[in-house]
């Protein structure tokens, strides 16, 4: 039976493989060998994928971050509900192998397009949309214990940085003091092979929730005045941003301060930066920053800063539910200030965005709010 699509471009010469690549390739091959072994013994080919659910993570009190448990989900080829995802897992594996051998990287969206095709003899697509593909990539990461970058896959850039630091990104010198109004766009992969810290004079890192606030700080040259690095992660920070923060903290010893909205979403972003996320619990050791600190906004700021009621946003049902859930997280449950903080927000019945401070004065946040907190060391842990 002739196969129509000449899939593998054998014309491309294999790229020189790094040690890491060889290791990754070997584990990918292991994945395939298992299938062949099962087929030969007449058994159902299966994969044990570490479970990425809330039930399989636990909070490591001594390390102070979320760790993945040992629970796995078995994915079988001959199981109606798993057959397709099993097939997809192997497909992602073969796609990554292709990337590795050619020494190229692609976005997760690119990988999705690389692997998407109509299954022979049917009208079904291998992947219906990218949302179908992304969790499979994470599955491959966890089951091979390989990082996304080791598979030559990255996510889109989200998040920027300015400050007193000199980087080397893939051989290019980057002076983060001369980044204009846009800042340095933090790539998805920020491993030492890609980004090296050349020189750093900054004394701390200020991470803000989103772009608009970050611009305020950048325009006011806050980082110059206070000699710091300024980052944002467009809401929930992507892996690249979190990994970079982690490296700045661990390798350069810079404290990380977070300026986030006073709402359950903001609390959760802080929780992810500090303890790691449930979904990426296997990456916590590389991502979590247990010593990060929460500057604000605080529930008490409404009265402390004398804000007008018109800048508040009422908590909806979902917010209340989410807040109560966050309150019970093991890493918050024993911290009295946090319990008080959340209780106060619930009592207020409203949330506050960082932008609300602009109602006081356009630069209130950069000239007064943050400097005062830093001065008073008024943080939440």
């Amino acid at each position: 039976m002739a196969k129509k699509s000449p899939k593998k471009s054998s014309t491309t010469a294999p790229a020189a493989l790094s040690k890491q690549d060889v290791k990754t390739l070997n584990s990918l091959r292991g994945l395939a060998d298992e299938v062949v072994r099962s087929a030969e013994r007449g058994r159902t080919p299966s994969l044990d994928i570490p479970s990425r659910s809330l039930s399989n993570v636990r909070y490591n009190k001594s390390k102070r971050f979320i760790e993945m448990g040992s629970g796995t989900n078995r994915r079988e080829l001959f199981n109606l509900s798993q057959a397709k995802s099993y097939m997809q897992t192997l497909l992602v594996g073969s796609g990554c192998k292709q990337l590795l051998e050619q020494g190229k990287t692609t976005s997760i969206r690119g990988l999705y397009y690389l692997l998407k095709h109509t299954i022979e003899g049917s009208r079904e697509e291998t992947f219906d949309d990218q949302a179908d593909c992304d969790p499979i990539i994470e599955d491959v990461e966890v089951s091979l214990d390989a990082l996304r970058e080791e598979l030559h896959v990255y996510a889109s850039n989200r998040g920027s940085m300015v400050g007193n630091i000199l980087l080397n990104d893939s051989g290019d010198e980057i002076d983060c003091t001369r980044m204009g109004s846009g800042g340095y766009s933090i790539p998805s992969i920020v491993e030492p092979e890609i980004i090296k810290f050349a020189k750093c004079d900054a004394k701390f890192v200020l991470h803000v929730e989103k772009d608009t606030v970050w611009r305020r700080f950048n325009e006011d040259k806050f980082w110059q005045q206070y000699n710091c690095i300024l980052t944002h992660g467009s809401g929930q920070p992507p892996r690249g941003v979190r990994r970079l923060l982690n490296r700045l903290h661990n390798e350069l010893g810079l404290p990380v301060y977070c300026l986030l909205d006073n709402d359950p979403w903001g609390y959760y972003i802080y929780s992810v930066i500090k303890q790691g996320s449930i979904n990426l619990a296997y990456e916590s050791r590389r991502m979590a920053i247990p010593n990060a600190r929460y500057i604000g906004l605080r529930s008490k700021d409404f009265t402390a800063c004398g804000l007008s009621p018109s800048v508040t946003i009422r908590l909806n049902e979902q917010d209340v539910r989410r807040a109560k859930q966050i309150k019970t997280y093991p890493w918050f449950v024993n911290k009295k200030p946090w319990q008080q903080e959340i209780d106060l927000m619930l009592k207020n019945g409203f949330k506050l965005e960082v932008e609300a401070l602009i109602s006081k004065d356009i630069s209130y946040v950069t000239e007064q709010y943050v400097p005062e907190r830093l001065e008073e060391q008024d943080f939440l842990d």
Partner: protein
Amino acid sequence: MSTVNEQSPLVEEPASGNGKAEGHAAPRRRMTAEMMAAQQRDISVSEFFAKNRHLLGFDNPRKALLTTVKEAVDNSLDACEEAGIVPEIWVHIESTGNNRFKVGIQDNGPGIMKKTIPLIFGKLLYGSKFHRLRMSRGQQGIGISAAGMYGMLTTGKPVKIISRISPRRPSHYYEIQIDTQKNRPEILNGRGEGEDIPAGEKGHAYILEHGIEWVSHYDAAEGEKPAEVQHGTRVTIELEGRYQRGRGSVDDYLEQTAIANPHVTLHYLDPEGNRKTYPRSTQKLPPEPKEIKPHPYGIELGRLVTMLKETKATTLSQFLTGSFSRVSSSVARKICEEAKLSPRASSSRIGRREADSLFEAIQRTRISPPSTDCISSIGEELLLKGISHVVPGEFYVAATRPPAVYRGNPFLIEVALAYGGGNPVQKVTRDTLAEMLGETDARTLRQFIMTSFEGLGSDAAERILKASAMGTRQSPSKLDEAEIAKLHEAMRNVNLESGQTMQVLRYANRVPLQFSQAACAITQAVMNTNWRPYGLSQSRGGLPSGPVTVMVHMASVWVPFTSESKEAIAGYPEILKELRLALQAVGRKLGMYLNRRKRVAQEGERRNIFLRYLREVATAVSDLNGADRDGLYDKLLHVAKRKTAEADMRFDQRGRAIESPNDFGDHVLIVQSESEPEEPAA
């Protein structure tokens, strides 16, 4: 009994107005009793039915054509079966222009004696079936002569009959008209004596020469000498009619007759010259039904009085035991005791009052139900053969109930069910469709589809029209070629399984009932049966939907029709109960089949899902570690097959291995479809 006496009330009082306002002036008499008496006279049955032809099924030209064919075919079948001849029937319809049709029906029956031919075909209410209790198609002896009369009234052409009793004796040929005033046949040919056609070759020549229609030989396989039709009767009637296909048509009637009469071969030549033959699927005649005496429970007072008058028995006891079934002398004695009459009383002396108490006594006395061997069922095996020959499908089941009794009349219900197969709408060819569109009197396309094809509801019609992008209210006769093609395409391709309603074929004594569906006890029983547990969807109090044809046959010595036109069966509780039980019996089997079909489909789906992904997996693996892709695929396929087989076994809840295909019990026929779940070639 040739006349009906009209009892019109005599008008003695002044008929008009109220006397008050007119004071004392004597009202003018318009008519005197004498004048009226002069106008009062006998009415002949023929005249009566000539005026009231709708009573006999001649209400409109389309139905007239059908009724004519039906009466003739029914008579032919009755005659053949009574004589013990395996019937072969020829139905020829020929258009003679001007909405006139020449209908010729020939059988290979025993033939008719020369003397009685004119009476049978030229006199209403003449026949052998009225006075006896015996299962037969015809009952009154009106049908065929009424058809002849209708033909004569509308076209003026005589009825032509040719009948042959034996190959050695001359055949008789008659051209008859009915004298409607006297209800008497009038023979036109051979100077009022009819013609004799000599036997043998000379006869064949005579037939040809005189242009008499007669099929002289049976069809024979190629190379064989065709056998001569040695005996039989052919009646030819020319009448005004309308030929139209679809529901309630001649074609429909013949098809349904073929289902219920698998021992009959039918040759049909339609007005457009198409020949169609329904070959018999068995040589075995149905067992001969026995004639029975009436059962006392089924008798009415008036009839009892008449019987008492007519009886030759001398004593009451003799009368009771001799005229009724299931009345022994001890039962007769009990009845007499109950009625406080002497068993030895003279039966001719029983007066009105005594008859009344006798009638009451009969109702109070326990009498065993009538014997039921007088009914001949079609039988499950032949029902299956019949329905599977004519209705395409994948699953057939039949059930015959034991005989039961209503109002003292034994009867029996049998049901056959066919599931699957296409709808008639999907079988129709484009040319036929174009013709049907031209012929129909439906005003809208939607109406056309619903009335022309069995088992299509408004839902299905709308889906077809939507698929063909045509309006529901478009006129069917004004479609152009392209539109017809589009409609035809849509009819073939639209999935109608869910939009289809159950098709109910009703039979009484093997005769299909084609009209008054809603009024019929059979339809009521089908609608009142809950089909949902059997895997069909059904809206409350409606016919279930799905590609199902159910055929229901009621056999009885006396079928209780709701009207003289014999279109619907009356709903006696006993009949409804038997109908329900029979329908449930086939329903259960259908449910089992549908359940299993669903399971097989699921199983196939499971396997398909795995198979679909196996090649992808094999490709990915071979990309990753360079394994032999096709070899791996084969191995995985092997595992897949084993795994799904195991999974299927587990599917049965009772822990049994998958049942063998024959556990439906008897009288089930499953047609394997050719399309097995596809397997990608390795």
